[in-house]
């Protein structure tokens, strides 16, 4: 098998199962009554946490590829991104259905009045166009440049996700700040690559003159 075949036939299905496993485990825990006394909160927490984790992994793939030269990493980025979207959909549904039980009045009030929900909801909304334009056909239709520009929204989405987490905790900010630190490193590495690439490109231009 060629590398492309290995990836398509073996590693992608494996990665898919791996990405799915936290949700399967959550469902199993619910079924076996292994969750806490407040299972709905557990589902909210778990799906929210995994949204952030998938976002971080998605954002880590590009810098990791540049660091290692493993170009195949990029072929998993759509999958991890879509799993972040899958997770946030479950998170939002849990909130609307299990938590608020479709009390739209309460939900709208929450979105307006509670900054952590406003930010979280905004991030969720921004993820929708990214998920919709994730197919090959949409990418082609949009053209690489526009597609790339649109998908830079992910930086704001991840930032919004971390702020959402930070603003909802009562006193213990350790976990949201950890995600914040990881995000800072990931975004910082992009800037670093951006500047070093520009510097490298600048040199031949200077000698040509």
């Amino acid at each position, binding site marked *: 098998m060629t590398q492309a075949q290995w990836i398509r036939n073996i590693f992608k299905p494996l990665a898919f199962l791996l990405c799915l496993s936290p949700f399967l485990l959550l469902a199993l825990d619910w079924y076996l009554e292994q969750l*806490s*006394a*407040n299972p*709905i*909160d557990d589902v909210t927490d778990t799906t929210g946490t995994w949204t952030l984790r998938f976002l971080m992994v998605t954002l880590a793939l590009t810098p990791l590829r540049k660091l290692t030269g493993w170009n195949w990493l990029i072929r998993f980025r759509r999958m991890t991104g879509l799993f972040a979207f899958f997770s946030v959909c479950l998170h939002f549904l849990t909130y609307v259905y*299990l*938590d*608020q*039980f479709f009390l739209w009045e*309460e939900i709208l*009030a*929450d979105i307006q*009045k*509670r*900054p*952590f929900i406003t930010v979280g909801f905004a991030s969720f909304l921004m993820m929708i166009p990214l998920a919709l334009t994730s197919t090959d056909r949409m990418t082609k239709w949009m053209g690489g440049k526009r597609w790339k520009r649109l998908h830079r929204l992910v930086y704001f989405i991840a930032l919004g996700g971390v702020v959402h987490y930070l*603003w*909802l905790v*009562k*006193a*213990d900010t*350790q976990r949201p700040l950890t995600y914040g630190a990881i995000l800072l490193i990931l975004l910082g590495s992009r800037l670093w690559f951006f500047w070093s690439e520009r510097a490298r490109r600048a040199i031949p231009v200077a000698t040509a003159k």
Partner: protein
Amino acid sequence: MLIKRGPEIPSSEVTPESVYHGRRTFLKKAAFATAGLATAGVAGPLTSSARPQNPGWNRPPAGPYNTDEDLTSFKDITTYNNFYEFGTDKDDPYKNAGDFKTRPWRLTIEGEVRKPAAYELDDFLKPYKLEDRVYRLRCVEGWSMIIPWLGFPIGDVVRKVEPTSRARYIEFTTLHDPRQMPGQKRPVLNWPYVEGLRMDEAMHPLAIFVVGLYGKELPNQNGAPFRIVVPWKYGFKSCKSIVKIRFVENEPRTTWNIAAPNEYGFYSNVNPDVDHPRWSQKFERRIGEFRKRRTMMFNGYGDQVASLYTGMDLRKHF
């Protein structure tokens, strides 16, 4: 005219009131016993936290101090806790409080009292008569439980220690011992945990000192060996593992109030009309239930405690 009398029911066949009122508990107990039998063989000796509820315990009849709502299971009460001294996750207290040493336990009563003293807890407890109190517990996070506490009114103690005329508040302090309470190793809150009540609140017969639940010794994760419970206030007002009771003239600076003064007021009475700045307090999820229910003013104890706050703006004094 002949009035026919119904058949006499022999007194031996009448269900004693305590058993009648304990019928739900009985069913739960039966379920617990079955579960215990099923797992005991594989799980080995049950830990203190997983022990089934006290089989000899009977639920007290409904009354002003006892709700007749369905009890939250012993398992849920002892595995889902906010007790940051043992960690900030809900199951941390259950996991980390197992080795907590609750004896010997020194308790001091100080400040504006005629009889300040230091006690060994068991000596301190001797004069007081324990009673079951089935209370609603409403957490500020939006969930609630029905818990059968075992304790006695705070007022009983206050009368005994004779506060001076300057005593207007009581301040309660939790043990500070990071070796035993791993949560205190991080500055999540301003340790030690301090809570307070106005004197008339503390004297209210609903406000109690607690040493047990489900009729037996308080599990460590629930604030052993000695805590208060104030059922019309959010749960965090009910200070746990108390080592110091101080009578003071001025309103004590309480831990959550220090952490976020705009979110947690000194009074923190359960109030569906005053939202937490970050979430609504209109509804709550009763542990074990699916749909949320409406939160009641003063957690349903309004008839008994509302008069403590006459003339006060509860939006300002939240």
